[in-house]
């Protein structure tokens, strides 16, 4: 049962109302035995997905549906002097045209508008058309005449901070206040250090490239709007679009059943949600607006590039005395909402160190806006910090894993709270080093032009803890089956299956008696955005909470119906059992039939996280690579990875997600890079031809070692998030292996042939052998 607590707090003169919903349900114990949880059941939506019947946003087809296209800025920085859409409007089949000339001035991106007179990157929205077919919409876009005043642009992070740099915003190109953090006395720490290392690392912009692009279908019925949107957060879209359109939230229904990937870029609403809604209102017809691949890669988010200057100081025995990181990160032309890219985070927490300073500056440049991309900030930080740790180990002549062990922290050092599972990271170190026989497995003789090396990297991740609020409703029906309803979404991660397993376990029903409804604001209660690897840890406990309530109601009914004291009854696998009897006394369906048409219902809510502890997920990863020093090619031979993500709900699905994350990490490390022509301000590869995501041919042997220790203090299911962690350490593990193989450090990703050959050419050839 959920208890609502409301408190009034005075914080710095401001009154805050804090709400918590507490369910005192006891957590599943570390050794709990389960019927459904922990089993590798196949994904529940498997049949729809393999038969092509799963309906994605892109597949929505409504009677009379129109198709929309967007005219995008051809200039990185320009002002619209004049726009004439008359030729487009006159084209046969065109039903609505929107631009700054006729669209309402709806604010967007902090200080801009849906259609703005100033354009700040190549791809910025200029106008939009809805037509009977996609082809006619394309034609119409070409018939829009625009006069632009071209303004000087800037796309380089460091140059954007120069005093004479073109200003993207009147206040300058620094986005918000720099994020500054310090603890202890970093300068004293560096004075105390016996060894200091320093390096400058660049991480390049990566593009999400979800296979299903961003987009939506909008359909008005009177004053009610239904929006099918390819989103990680139906409720965020509802809130933001209702505000933009001045519509009450209960008149806007946002639906997302299946989604072809998001990876962070779909955790906020985007302009096309508004544009399609306006075009639909204008035309009186449903309008679908899906981005094409170019637009997807220009205007729908990217992983921020960074420049990180890192200093580490340590005593001879490896004890860290100081960590300092100076960080520039690219914002693109606009600040977006959603999960922040906290590049500073890992510097503060991954290793025990009393003296830490970080300084992070976000910089506006004339490119599309950055947005969270799977483990935002941590992927970038790990590339620098984990190489710096390796470099420090070399300087100290210490084993790199041993160096990490000597700087182990069992507490979260920002707030000084102990971790809920303090041994989590150590377990990852142990699993990986044992599996690869780390201590002896390190040197190979050169084989022609081939060199081999191994590398190691670790990570933490802040958000996999889950968090309130999040709600679930359960209704147990007359035939003993249950509807589980939540407003969360399955973005391809297996949420539908993992949550149904929790529901089945708590209700004592077989999995096929559960139908999980999600991704629809018109059906389910509020659930947060599917981001931060939080969904299972947020929603699992909410579902347990509702399930426990319904189960108790069921036993109450069964006790009367069977005339057996309630304390002797329990429910398991769809039946009601009397204590230790070998046979069940009744099925759940038989009990429910006796009270039909009554049903049993409950609401569950996510309880607060423990106030006195910090929840983190951890991991460690090993890379074994081969480098051809003549061609510059890196071949990854093997990745071994372990992650403390609490209890494993579905081993097969978690393996898939971890392997998939590592593969994205290999892409970030070796091939993926948005290439900018700074002179033109133009992205040269906004497509899947020249932006190289890994293919089946690029995949090494990847082994996921299960840690699988329930984090019983974290939440009532003991599970934490796994979506983001696996790719955080991949690129630095590969870069460390490259150093092990060649003695050369690569401080920029991706480690493609051009970079490798450039760096190797800087070395005397003799030193490589």
């Amino acid at each position: 049962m959920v208890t609502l607590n409301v408190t009034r707090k005075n914080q710095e003169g401001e009154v805050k109302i804090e709400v918590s919903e507490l369910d005192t349900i006891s957590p599943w114990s570390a050794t709990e035995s389960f019927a459904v949880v922990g089993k590798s059941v196949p994904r529940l939506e498997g049949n729809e997905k393999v038969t092509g019947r799963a309906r994605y946003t892109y597949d929505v087809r409504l009677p009379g549906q129109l198709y929309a296209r967007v005219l995008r800025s051809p200039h990185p920085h320009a002002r619209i002097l004049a726009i004439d859409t008359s030729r487009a409007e006159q084209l046969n089949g065109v039903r609505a045209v929107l631009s700054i000339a006729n669209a309402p001035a709806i604010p967007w991106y902090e200080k801009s508008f849906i259609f703005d007179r100033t354009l700040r990157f190549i791809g910025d929205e200029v106008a939009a058309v809805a037509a009977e077919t996609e082809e006619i919409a394309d034609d119409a876009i070409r018939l829009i005449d625009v006069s632009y005043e071209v303004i000087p642009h800037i796309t380089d992070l460091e140059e954007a901070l120069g005093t004479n740099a073109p200003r993207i915003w009147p206040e300058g190109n620094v986005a918000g206040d720099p994020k500054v953090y310090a603890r202890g006395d970093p300068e004293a720490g560096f004075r105390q250090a016996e060894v200091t290392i320093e390096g400058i690392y660049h991480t390049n912009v990566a593009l999400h490239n979800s296979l299903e692009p961003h987009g939506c279908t909008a359909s008005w019925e009177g004053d009610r709007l239904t929006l099918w949107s390819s989103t990680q957060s139906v409720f965020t879209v509802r809130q933001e679009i209702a505000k933009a359109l001045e519509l009450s939230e209960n008149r806007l229904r946002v639906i997302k059943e299946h989604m072809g990937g998001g990876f962070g870029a779909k955790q906020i609403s985007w302009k096309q949600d508004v544009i399609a809604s306006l075009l639909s209102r204008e035309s009186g017809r449903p309008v679908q607006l899906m981005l094409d691949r170019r637009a997807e890669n220009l205007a729908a988010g990217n992983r921020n590039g960074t420049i990180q200057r890192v200093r580490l100081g340590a005593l001879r025995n490896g004890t860290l005395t100081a960590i300092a990181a100076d960080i520039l990160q690219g914002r693109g032309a606009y600040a977006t909402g959603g999960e922040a890219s906290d590049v500073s985070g890992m510097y503060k927490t991954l290793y025990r160190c009393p003296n830490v300073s970080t300084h992070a500056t976000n910089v506006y440049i004339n490119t599309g806006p950055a947005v969270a991309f799977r483990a935002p900030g941590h992927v970038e930080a790990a590339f620098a910090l984990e190489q710096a740790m390796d470099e420090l180990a070399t300087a100290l002549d210490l084993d790199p894993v041993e160096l990490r062990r000597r700087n182990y922290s069992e507490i979260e050092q920002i707030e000084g709270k102990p971790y809920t599972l303090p041994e989590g990271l150590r377990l990852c170190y142990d699993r990986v080093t044992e599996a690869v026989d780390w201590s002896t497995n390190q040197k190979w003789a050169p084989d022609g032009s081939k060199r081999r090396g191994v590398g190691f990297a670790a990570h933490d991740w802040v958000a996999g803890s889950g968090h309130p609020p999040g709600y679930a409703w359960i209704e147990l029906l007359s035939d003993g089956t249950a509807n589980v309803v939540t407003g969360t979404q399955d973005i391809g991660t297996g949420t539908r299956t993992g949550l149904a397993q929790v529901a089945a376990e708590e209700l004592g029903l077989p999995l096929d008696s559960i139908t999980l409804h999600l991704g629809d604001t018109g059906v389910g209660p509020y659930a947060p955005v599917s981001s931060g690897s939080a969904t299972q840890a947020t929603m699992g406990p909410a579902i347990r909470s509702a399930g426990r309530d319904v189960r108790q109601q069921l036993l109450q009914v069964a006790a009367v119906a069977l005339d057996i004291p309630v304390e002797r009854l329990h429910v398991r696998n769809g039946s009601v059992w009397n204590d230790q009897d070998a046979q069940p006394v009744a099925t759940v369906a038989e009990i429910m039939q006796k009270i039909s048409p009554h049903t049993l219902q409950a609401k569950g809510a996510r309880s607060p996280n423990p106030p006195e502890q910090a929840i983190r997920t951890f991991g460690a990863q090993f890379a074994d690579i081969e480098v051809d020093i003549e061609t510059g090619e890196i071949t990854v031979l093997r990745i071994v990875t372990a992650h403390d993500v609490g209890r494993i709900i579905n081993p097969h699905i978690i393996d898939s997600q971890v392997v998939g994350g590592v593969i994205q990490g290999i892409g970030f490390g070796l091939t993926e890079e948005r290439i900018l022509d700074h002179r033109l301000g133009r992205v040269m590869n906004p497509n899947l031809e020249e932006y190289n995501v890994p293919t089946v041919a690029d995949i090494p042997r990847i082994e996921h070692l299960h840690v699988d220790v329930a984090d019983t203090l974290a939440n009532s299911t003991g599970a934490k998030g796994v979506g983001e962690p696996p790719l955080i350490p991949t690129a630095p593990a590969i870069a460390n292996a490259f150093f092990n193989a060649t003695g050369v450090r690569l401080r920029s990703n991706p480690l493609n042939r051009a970079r490798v050959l450039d760096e190797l050419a800087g070395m005397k050839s003799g030193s490589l052998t």
Partner: protein
Amino acid sequence: MTVTTTKEEQMTATVTEPTTVLLTINGINRLVLVEPRRTLLDLLRHDLALTGTKKVCDMGNCGACTVIVDGLAKYSCLLLAIDCDGSHITTIEGLAKGNNLDPIQQAFIDHDAFQCGFCTSGQIMSLRALLDAQPDPTDEEIELAVTGNLCRCGAYPNIVAAGRRAVDIESNRASVDRDRQGGD
């Protein structure tokens, strides 16, 4: 500096006359009136509402739109519908017989060979074309068959495993069929 976009003004948006094409899609004859510029992919998705075939890159890079045209796996985004007149086309919707899944489809479920599922139709169609042409492929041939199919979730190892499993299922069936025929 002032620039006026006039370079496309010459490209008048003349709609060329629609043309009728006859296609056999998943065993059913379909007569469709299409604009000459419509791709096979758009014909499937728009004219026939066969949305199981996905549009991702629309330029032949990703393989999400793969269908089987006259026995060969093809990127349907690179084919004009009018050029397919008279062709036999199989899409993902044509594989299962009622509720009986194709062995590749079942193997994809069993091996968890997808996460978001957006590349899945294309992966399955590439493998179907392989197994139709070569019932006993090597592991390398299986991998080669899906090298043109990108999966952003990184389900590749499971996709290859599912391909192998499908080969096993089908070769068992084939040998059972042979035994039956031998016994008759």
